[in-house]
């Protein structure tokens, strides 16, 4: 690892699943003290996280970790632990194996989230079970924290509490890597966003470079091309004509269409995911 701040570098990594490849020649760098999102509707971001954690085989390429980096914690997406162990026992076992694990911190976090130390893991709710997994990871004060769909099964209020812990870790130099199927779930809290589709990484944005939310104008029937006028890019999809444009332009065009009284049209708000994935479709075609 030559760059001073680089903790992990993914080079041309291809991940197989049976005879298919779910990720193809992915290249990514993760810098110290950043929160990075990997967004993939097909949820292959989680597989990438598993490969970084050493839990999934890679077909080719390599994952290079910074010298001396050994504390990687992976919090799975939907794995629920049906163990008969009590929460306190489960966390204590972790502290037996790892010297630097702060058991006190783990138990305090349990209190914070209202999880009884004496409760068996198999009796916890889905949210509590996921929180125990998060607490285990947080106890270890990892250098790389891998969160697979961290919002899954966790309420917004609880996630807000978790975010504070993540911020503390980030300040201490931890890379927090979040895999999600949707930008909307993650929001704008990350430093970098990597969008993936069909196993390929096709777009990366810094937080301040994110595309603005856009409107889509859907025109059915009529001669929609007449309204193109070079104002916007026109895409054809089956018998619909869809135009992607800024909100201001969408309103202006809608007024024109209303006045023309010749076509059936509607204006819809696009989510950030749709904006990016529509871009991908255009790029891919």
């Amino acid at each position: 690892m030559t760059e001073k701040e680089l903790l992990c570098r993914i080079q041309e990594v291809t991940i197989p699943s049976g005879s298919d490849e779910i990720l193809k020649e992915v290249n990514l760098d993760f810098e110290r003290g950043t929160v990075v999102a990997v967004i993939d509707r097909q949820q292959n971001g989680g597989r990438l996280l598993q490969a970084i954690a050493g839990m999934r085989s890679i077909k080719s390429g390599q994952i290079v970790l910074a010298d001396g980096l050994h504390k990687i914690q992976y919090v799975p997406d939907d794995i629920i632990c049906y163990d008969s162990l009590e929460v306190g026992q489960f966390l204590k076992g972790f502290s037996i194996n790892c010297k630097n694990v702060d058991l006190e911190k783990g138990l305090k976090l349990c209190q914070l989230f209202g999880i009884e130390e004496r409760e068996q893991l198999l009796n916890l709710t889905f949210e509590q079970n996921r929180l125990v997994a998060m607490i285990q990871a947080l106890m270890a004060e990892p250098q790389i924290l891998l969160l697979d769909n961290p919002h899954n099964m966790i309420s917004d209020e609880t996630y807000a509490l978790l975010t504070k812990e993540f911020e503390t870790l980030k300040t201490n130099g931890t890379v927090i890597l979040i895999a999600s199927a949707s930008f909307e779930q993650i929001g704008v809290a990350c430093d970098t966003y990597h969008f993936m589709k069909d196993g390929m990484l096709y777009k990366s944005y810094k937080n301040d470079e994110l595309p603005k939310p856009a409107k889509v104008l859907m025109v059915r029937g009529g001669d929609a091309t007449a309204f193109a006028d070079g104002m916007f890019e026109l895409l054809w999809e089956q018998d619909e004509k869809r135009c992607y444009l800024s909100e201001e332009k969408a309103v202006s065009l809608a007024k024109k269409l209303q006045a023309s009284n010749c076509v059936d049209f509607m204006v819809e708000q696009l989510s950030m995911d749709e904006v990016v994935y529509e871009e991908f479709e255009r790029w891919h075609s």
Partner: protein
Amino acid sequence: MAFVKTIFYYEITRKKKKMFWHILGPCLVYALLFLVCLLVDKFAPDFNNTYFRWPDMVKEFLGMGSWNRNLYINLWQLSVLCYPLYLVYVLMIEVSSSVIEEKRLETTVYLHNMGIGRRKIMVAKGLFWFGVAGVGLLVLLVENAVFALILQAEGWLINMSGYYGKLFFVSVILGGMGLFFASYHKKEADCEERILGFVLLSFFVSRLPAFLKLLSEILIATDRAGSLSDNLRILAERFRVLEILSPPTWCWFAAEIPGEYWICGAVVTVIMGVAAFSIYGHGKVMD
């Protein structure tokens, strides 16, 4: 070796009741048996002499030593014919299900986070259950040695020590097999069925030579000696090598087990252990 402590901690926490019964259950049974035998010896002193005068061919078939004047020692001799089968079956089931259950409980991910990979899980679980078997056998040895001393049958101490020592070695051999079964099974129930089949089938096949010999002896004892009884005896001698298939019978007192069998057992254990380690450790947690 901190990972061993963690796995041991989880195993003890999860299965303390089971362990308690595996170790102390047989002890309680023997203690009860001892008390009953004392009472029978006191109130019906002829019982032992009347009912424990079996023909030599039956004793030979069962791999038993000579009868003792104490009823308890005789009953202990009979019990130790079955106990190895029970012990190896329980050990194989426990060690294999202990490895497989980590996947079912979805705890392999968390153990991986703790720096405990699949290979470490297998090694630690193997060590743990071999340890439990060892402790259980040691407790039984001490208990029965005390009973033998109380009954003034000091000569049996050597027999008992040899028996429990051999049984521990046999436990390790079969425990290695249990790990091998666990390495390629995903469900505990499937694995248990195969282990039961393996233990019983190998036992019955290994006793085939002794059974042929018993038939031959019965023919001779009933004045039907002839070519059939000779052939049965010859067949029994030829198939004697089948005795190697079932290690639990190696511990029986009168079983004449060549030293090569024990070497073969050690080699098989190493092969099975390495194969299990390799197969189980080959895959990643999420593959």
